[in-house]
């Protein structure tokens, strides 16, 4: 077993520097790397380029990094629900690149899988395709989209072991598996780090080969963005 376990979030984030490009898993606030984000806020590094589907809310998730003006550029598909984000974007303090959600996922997956680029129909004929190479396949037009290049990927899983194997829960899975191994260093935080050998190999979602560092998060708030319920009748 090749050991990926690090003792603390401090060890897990060794080597992060201002000016780097980071990937963050999560959809809304579901499945975000809460502990890694909190540490990045504490370290105060800035000029970051962040690849993440969303940008958190004003006081949680990537919103915490935005609040401290640590982010120079965001690459996302949907950024509603964040007033500070909107203010920084409209004032020009923050550079924002909005891309289709499926393209975001596939540009991560391409980086993970060793593809330099992919063709997608998403965005053809729109401003997203401006300046990009397009090509026709079987009578339909596609846009060439390049694999991402990132220094660190910060992902969050439900369970993991010291070998780096990961299991996700529910829709907290989202972009997390696609970002594993898509950056130079993948840092996985888990709710529960279990002894090696206790996870059934049949149930592993992401094999440890895609993960460089793994640790158990100290605590998880797991905030719900839109609490919707129905009444028992």
């Amino acid at each position: 077993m090749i050991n990926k376990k690090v003792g603390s979030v401090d060890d897990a984030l060794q080597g992060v520097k201002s000016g780097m490009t980071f990937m963050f898993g999560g959809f809304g606030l579901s499945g975000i790397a809460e502990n890694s984000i909190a540490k990045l806020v504490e370290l105060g590094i800035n000029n970051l380029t962040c690849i993440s589907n969303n940008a958190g809310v004003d006081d949680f998730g990537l919103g915490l990094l935005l609040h401290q003006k640590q982010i120079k550029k965001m690459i996302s598909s949907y950024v509603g629900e964040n007033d500070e984000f909107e203010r920084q974007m409209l004032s020009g303090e923050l550079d924002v690149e909005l891309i289709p959600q499926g393209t975001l996922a596939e540009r991560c997956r391409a980086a993970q899988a060793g593809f330099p680029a992919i063709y997608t129909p998403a965005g053809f004929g729109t401003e997203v395709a401006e300046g990009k190479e397009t090509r026709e396949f079987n009578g339909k037009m596609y846009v060439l989209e390049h694999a991402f290049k990132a220094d660190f990927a910060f992902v969050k899983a439900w369970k993991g072991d010291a070998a780096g194997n990961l299991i996700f829960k529910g829709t907290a899975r989202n972009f997390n598996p696609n970002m594993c191994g898509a950056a130079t260093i993948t840092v996985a935080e888990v709710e529960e780090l279990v002894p090696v050998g206790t996870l059934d190999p049949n149930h592993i979602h992401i094999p440890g080969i895609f993960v460089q560092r793994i640790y158990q998060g100290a605590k998880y708030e797991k905030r719900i963005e839109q609490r919707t319920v129905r009444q028992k009748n």
Partner: protein
Amino acid sequence: MLDKNGIAKRIAKEVQDGYYVNLGIGIPTLVANYVRDDIEVEFQSENGVLGMGPFPFEGEEDADIINAGKQTITTLPGASFFDSAMSFSMIRGQHVHLTILGAMEVSEKGDIANWKIPGKMVKGMGGAMDLVASAENIIVAMMHTNKAGESKLLKKCSLPLTGVKCVKKIVTNLAVLEVTGKGFKLLERAPGISVEEIQKATEGKLIVEGTIPEMDI
């Protein structure tokens, strides 16, 4: 004239047995409430779930089980979870049969704009561009006119596009229309609405052939 639930109710009639369906945020979400219960349909949410169920009972919400609108949901027997790349494989690979989404503008060629108002609203396209670029069957659910009373069914979209030549059908508070490439073909009128009223609210070319029936909802 229909309200939002009326639009959802009419669209629900388009959902057929065996369909995998992706519902957008807003009116489309309401469609799930009106699908006949004698057919088998699975709802996909692009954040990674197939087989979505209703909202959870109070106290049973789970931060790890949400839909694309970030609302807490439940799953039905036979449901599955998956990652974002696989989710869009279902969409791009045309495994999802029907996409229902909202729009700010639709053109008579089937172009759709629903993600950006320059200088005003820039939230992003989310999964909409992937959905409209790939789905074989796209139904738009929207009001016929905007808050200022201007038509949303246009000759040409004025807002930044989400996709080109992709919308097949539109259900509004006034009418059901088919996008033919040559204009909006009027199929049905909302209860109590005349062809003239629909004509007045439609900026793009409206094709009216024969007698237009009233919706049966």
